[in-house]
């Protein structure tokens, strides 16, 4: 399938349908993948697609406004492109989506443990909650016919862990998050890697006023992590990049998932369902639940 991918990429560049293709190439360690930005046909030979291609490349689309960009995207990446389209951050005509079929990517942190081959490695947690393997939106699809996948099976109940955690006492919950957030170093990798975090000036960097402490203390870290997740309500498509990028292992997906579950229950809303969908917080329903309001 890499052959087909490269062929299509060359064709797109040759016919000038796109100015650049954002894809994956093999990293300097010879195992993992890294993002690559291709503008010349011969460079297309570097393109790859396999279980090591964990990144959500749609994060880079904001770097090239007004350019025609081809992007290699799996199902979860496509969902984030859809959200960006919903929010008018992209023009549909400016992007050419080369969809790739995905049966799960590896959990990247396990690479550090010395394991290398796909069979030994675990699939990423996010893939266990993901259902379809064909992207819901694409301009060209590279199908995965030459690879008999052992892909992950979707979990029966994707919010099982969240429910379990909700059942704990309030003190336990606070203690858990206090400990997790205490490790936060405020490097903002979670924000920077997120395709949805495109604010020109993030609330964390604002000084007039300063919304919450910029020091990595309890108040600052908690406020930052809560507001980061909140700003993704109805927008997070669970690509898991924030959690992967976090150098100190804070389970950020567990916060994102909580909101995902809530909005499903409260508003029957799923982020990134379709381009015509309205963003969750800029619309409402007359009958939205209000049992929490006095």
């Amino acid at each position, binding site marked *: 399938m890499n052959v087909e991918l490269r062929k299509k990429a060359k064709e797109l560049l040759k016919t000038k349908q796109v100015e650049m293709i954002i894809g994956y190439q093999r990293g300097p360690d010879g195992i993992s993948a890294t993002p690559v930005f291709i503008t010349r046909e011969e460079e297309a030979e570097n393109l790859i697609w396999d279980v090591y291609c964990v990144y959500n490349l749609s994060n880079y689309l904001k770097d090239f406004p007004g350019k025609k960009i081809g992007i290699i995207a799996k199902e979860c990446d496509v969902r984030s492109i859809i959200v960006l389209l919903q929010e008018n951050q992209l023009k549909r005509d400016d992007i050419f989506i080369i969809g790739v079929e995905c049966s799960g990517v590896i959990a990247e942190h396990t690479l550090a443990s010395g394991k290398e081959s796909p069979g030994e490695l675990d699939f990423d947690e996010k893939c266990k909650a993901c259902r379809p393997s064909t992207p819901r939106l694409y301009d060209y699809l590279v199908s995965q016919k030459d690879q008999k996948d052992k892909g992950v099976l979707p979990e029966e109940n994707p919010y099982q862990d969240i429910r379990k955690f909700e059942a704990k006492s309030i003190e336990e919950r606070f203690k858990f998050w206090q400990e997790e957030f205490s490790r936060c170093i405020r490097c903002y990798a979670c924000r920077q890697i997120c395709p949805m975090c495109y604010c020109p000036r993030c609330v964390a960097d604002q000084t007039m006023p300063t919304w919450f402490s910029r020091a*990595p203390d309890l108040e600052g870290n908690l406020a930052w992590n809560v507001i980061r997740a909140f700003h993704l309500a109805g927008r997070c498509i669970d690509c898991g990049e924030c959690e992967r990028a976090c150098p100190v292992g804070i389970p950020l997906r567990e916060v994102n998932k*909580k909101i995902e579950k809530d909005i499903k229950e409260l508003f029957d809303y799923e982020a990134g369902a379709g381009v015509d969908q309205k963003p969750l917080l800029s619309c409402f329903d*007359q009958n939205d639940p209000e049992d929490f309001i*006095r």
Partner: protein
Amino acid sequence: MNKSQIPDHSPQKNSGDRNLKAPIKDFEPKIVGFLCNWCSYAGADLAGTSRIKYPPNIRVIRVPCSGRVNPLFVLNCLMNGVDGVLVSGCHIGDCHYSEGNFYARRRFAILKRLLEYIGIDPRRFQMAWVSAAEGERWAKLVGELVEEIKEAGPNEHFGGNR
């Protein structure tokens, strides 16, 4: 304390020794209320002009609409040691701007659940609809709120050492 000798709390463990608040038995909570200009603020005003007595624990911040209230306002209050936050607006259908409170309702439904998930007592963040005619109701609401937050106790996780 000697001027030059403020004990330093190293950043690694500045979560301890934070309870600088009053003991619980005579605990008077500090509550911040974000009140919409058109209904709830007028309602609170009515309570005042009608000389209805209610606890003085609430500090009112007037906002144009409950839809103006940013979750950051709520977090900022809680992180600075406020014991409870109330967002109050017009009843559904009465919004001066037609739909501001609809947006607020969605937004805070999510925030309320999220704060609870993180381990912040749900009693500390409350939302209400109070109309301009409901002076009586406003006073009752504040009374209940103060009782609830007294039960919840001081917000000792945050805002100490400041």
